[in-house]
């Protein structure tokens, strides 16, 4: 079921452009229907997934490396799978209307579906390597989606920032997961030995690396800066990736590994502290924004911080409840914001107003979602805020700090919710004039926001419908130690009899509304704090990027200075030094002299010819003569091959020399006559260097021959060539069978070299040469056009 669901999504992603080309209206609907079906499939399997240890499925991939396609569906992954499938289906449906006239609708649907496959794989994967692969795939698809409007520089910049930040985290996550696998003795998360991990020397490294990966992905302070910038993406992307699913991947991973890595002060305190800071800072920064999506983005940062904090505080129930509530209300609000901006062309909520009359359905959905976000009873947002406050108050160590932090962020969240979700519909626009409004949004744009808004109501009023089983399942997965948890989510019992949590919750509602009413005063009061932006982590990102570029250019200037002479000198000297050092340890001249006595007259003659050809090549005054001499060297070497019983090599050498000669002849017509450009001292230096190099290599070869060495691999090849490779020519059998992959790589290089020559000369020749590129069916007479 798990693998087939993934396969179906991947195939759908591949087919999406085709379907959208066949029919923009209906093809795109088919794409949107696929995740809906998968969501229903997962829902039907909920019974199995939520009981016991869940559904585990494994297929062999690279079993020798411990790499298997291991999937696991338990409460946590099931909840994520349902969110991905259902919100994903709704977002795809929304997209078919939102980008209806966009020329790249099919591409967008394809990448979005591909993202859903990656995200689904991430939450279902039990194997850590598999999880990492899907993790990186979500980063890449996110990059493509943020940069969807790649013609805008701002979008490209934001996409790169998100990719680099999450990519950095991805690398450290890979290291962390590998260490975790080593320490825990298993490559599957469910097979990790918690005791061994906790006692391992690697624990600190694992914890830091995993946290780094999760924090970058989930935009936790100090890596929160990329998420608001990612709002350059179209609204459907913001709703699906940057609020409901992808940014929660970090939260998911922390929750998933909390049973293994948690319970240690370092882990718990870091999560609680950084999560708490992000929660308050995000809520504060949200109110400093003036654009719908930016406000929602910072509020999402705050929510992600909240979730991480509760994982650190060991309050699985609070985290699970808020996760579900947040996915619903934030997904809805992002889509509403997208529709508002698209229909009115206005990004600032203060300039919107009175829209309830224009689109009552959208307005009611938006109001319900905003009220849920603010924490109004009887919606799920109220329940989750109560549960969170209770968890904060009940915490044994950080009761006061946690409660204060939750309350402050709750107050600011109320204000943000009213600004974004209520103001555009119920109040007058600040400009005083009526808002431009293109057309009422169609059913495709309304379906998901309405369903999410109703979901928030149902989850609050009747938790047993879906909220309670899912939250219970998540809690059992995050905190498996205890007995199966009994979760109470009845909103009436949370409201009455009132407790401290109730008073704080209602107080936050009231205070948040007051801040909303006096928001201009509030903004003026908090303005001076914007000076902090100058030293914020976003500056750190810019600085690091500039530093890397500078470092790269300095290093390139040193290592790749463009002088071929220096390159050759460095290469020769390096090889000569290394070989010479190795030789100096074991040099046996007597064995070499013994070898020298076996040299025949014929060999000496060939060597004399070789030396003569080489010497004359450096004495020539024209390039053509030099090349002829060099060819003489090559042909002599080919004769040596033939002499030593390597006809294949000799043949190839002859053919290569011939071709090289022809190619050189074509090239040298361009070269000027030799001139003395280098100083005499340098030429003497080069002469000495070449002499040292040649002498060292000769000594090396002699030493190798004199030593004899271990039994050669040639014997194996000779013995197996006919029986195993069906060929009497051992060289050829090695090339096409025993070592065929090497050959494949080599011919690939040859092909690239050919295309490289073609590309460089064509590009240099400029457009004129391209225009005159001869075609095969050209009918002009070719005879008579030869070279002079």
């Amino acid at each position: 079921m798990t693998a087939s669901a993934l396969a179906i999504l991947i195939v759908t992603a591949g087919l999406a452009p085709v379907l959208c080309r066949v029919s923009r209206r209906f093809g795109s609907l088919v794409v949107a229907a696929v995740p809906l079906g998968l969501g229903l499939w997962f829902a039907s399997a909920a019974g199995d997934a939520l009981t016991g240890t869940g559904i585990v499925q494994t297929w062999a991939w690279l079993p020798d490396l411990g790499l298997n396609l291991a999937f696991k569906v338990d409460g946590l992954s099931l909840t994520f799978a349902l969110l991905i499938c259902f919100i994903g289906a709704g977002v795809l449906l929304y997209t078919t209307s939102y980008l209806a006239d966009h020329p790249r609708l099919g591409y967008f649907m394809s990448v979005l579906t591909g993202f859903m496959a990656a995200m689904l794989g991430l939450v279902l994967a039990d194997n850590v390597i598999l999880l990492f692969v899907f993790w990186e795939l979500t980063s890449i698809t996110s990059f493509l989606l943020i940069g969807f409007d790649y013609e805008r520089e701002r979008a490209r910049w934001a996409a790169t920032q998100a990719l680099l930040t999450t990519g950095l985290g991805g690398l450290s996550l890979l290291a962390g997961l590998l260490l975790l696998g080593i320490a825990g003795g298993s490559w599957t998360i469910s097979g990790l030995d918690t005791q061994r991990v906790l006692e391992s020397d690697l624990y600190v490294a694992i914890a830091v690396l995993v946290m780094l990966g999760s924090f970058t992905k989930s935009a936790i302070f100090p890596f929160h800066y990329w998420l608001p910038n990612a709002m350059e993406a179209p609204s459907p992307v913001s709703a699906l990736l940057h609020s409901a699913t992808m940014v929660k991947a970090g939260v998911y991973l922390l929750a998933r590994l909390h049973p293994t890595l948690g319970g240690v002060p370092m882990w718990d305190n870091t999560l609680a502290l950084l999560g708490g800071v992000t929660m308050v800072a995000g809520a504060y920064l949200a109110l400093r924004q003036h654009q719908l999506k930016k406000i929602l983005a910072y509020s999402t940062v705050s929510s992600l911080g909240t979730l991480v904090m509760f994982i650190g505080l060991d309050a699985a129930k609070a985290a699970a409840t808020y996760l579900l509530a947040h996915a619903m209300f934030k997904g809805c609000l992002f889509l509403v914001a997208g529709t508002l901006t698209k229909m009115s062309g206005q990004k600032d909520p203060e300039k919107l107003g009175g829209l309830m009359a224009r689109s009552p359905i959208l307005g009611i959905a938006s109001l319900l979602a905003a009220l849920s976000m603010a924490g109004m009873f009887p919606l799920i947002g109220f329940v989750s805020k109560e549960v969170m406050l209770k968890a904060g108050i009940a915490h044994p160590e950080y009761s006061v700090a946690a409660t204060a932090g939750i309350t402050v962020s709750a107050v600011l969240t109320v204000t943000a919710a009213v600004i974004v979700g209520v103001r555009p519909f119920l109040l007058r626009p600040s400009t005083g004039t009526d808002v431009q409004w293109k057309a009422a949004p169609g059913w495709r744009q309304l379906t998901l926001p309405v369903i999410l808004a109703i979901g928030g109501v149902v989850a609050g009023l009747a938790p047993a419908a879906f909220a309670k089983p899912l939250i219970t399942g998540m809690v059992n997965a995050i905190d498996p130690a205890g007995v199966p948890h009994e979760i109470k989510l009845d909103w009436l019992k949370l409201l009455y009899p009132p407790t401290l949590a109730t008073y704080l919750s209602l107080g936050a509602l009231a205070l948040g509304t007051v801040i909303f009413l006096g928001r201009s005063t509030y903004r003026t009061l908090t303005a001076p704090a914007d000076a902090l932006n100058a030293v914020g982590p976003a500056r750190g990102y810019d600085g690091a990027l500039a530093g890397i570029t500078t470092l790269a250019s300095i290093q390139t200037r040193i290592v790749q200075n463009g002088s071929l002479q220096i390159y050759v000198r460095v290469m020769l000297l390096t090889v000569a030094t290394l070989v010479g050092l190795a030789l100096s340890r074991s040099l046996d001249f007597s064995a070499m002299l013994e070898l020298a006595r076996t040299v025949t007259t014929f060999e000496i003659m060939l060597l004399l010819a070789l030396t003569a050809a080489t010497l004359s090549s450096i004495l020539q005054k024209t390039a053509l003569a030099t090349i002829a001499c060099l060819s003489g060297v090559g042909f002599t070497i080919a004769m040596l091959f033939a002499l030593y019983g390597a006809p294949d090599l000799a043949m190839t050498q002859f053919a290569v020399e011939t071709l090289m000669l022809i190619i050189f002849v074509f090239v040298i017509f361009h070269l000027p006559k030799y001139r003395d450009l280098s100083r005499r001292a340098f030429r003497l230096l080069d002469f000495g260097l070449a002499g040292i190099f040649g002498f060292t290599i000769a000594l090396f070869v002699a030493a190798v021959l004199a030593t004899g060495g271990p039994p050669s691999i040639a014997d194996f090849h000779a013995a197996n060539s006919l029986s195993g490779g069906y060929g009497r020519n051992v060289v050829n059998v090695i090339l096409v069978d025993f070592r065929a992959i090497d050959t494949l790589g080599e011919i690939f290089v040859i092909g690239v070299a050919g295309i490289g020559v073609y590309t460089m000369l064509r590009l240099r020749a400029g457009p004129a040469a391209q225009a005159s590129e001869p075609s095969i069916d050209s009918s002009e007479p070719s005879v008579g056009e030869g070279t002079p």
Partner: protein
Amino acid sequence: MNSVIFRSSTIVLLPFMLVLSIVVLLRGHNEPGGGFVGGLLAASGFALHAMAFGHVSARKTLRIDPRVLIGLGLIIATISGLPAAFMGKAYLKGLWVELNAPGFPDPLKVGTPLAFDIGVYLLVLGAAFLMIVTLEEYRHDANTGS
């Protein structure tokens, strides 16, 4: 080159060199030879032709764009290893069948390494040809000042 002797002999030599290159390619598994040398031989033949009659004529004689040959050769070589991989053996391990062709005393052995070698042959021919012809075109363009 405007030598009549060179041109006339090239007309005769090219077909022979091509046939020879294929012989070398086919016999490579048991005697000295193979796809690499075969490809080089064929390319040398075309290089001769390019010297005698110019690059336009050489391209026309080859008929196929050398860039296509490079891709084709790489594809054939890559695919030739797949059957072994699908049969659970190492990728690119040679698989052989014996065909009883009428008129031949011995059964004819045909295997995936032959396909691999043909791929090598095509790629080497394409790459070498492309280099020679591109250089010749570049020289020609530079000389005519276009």
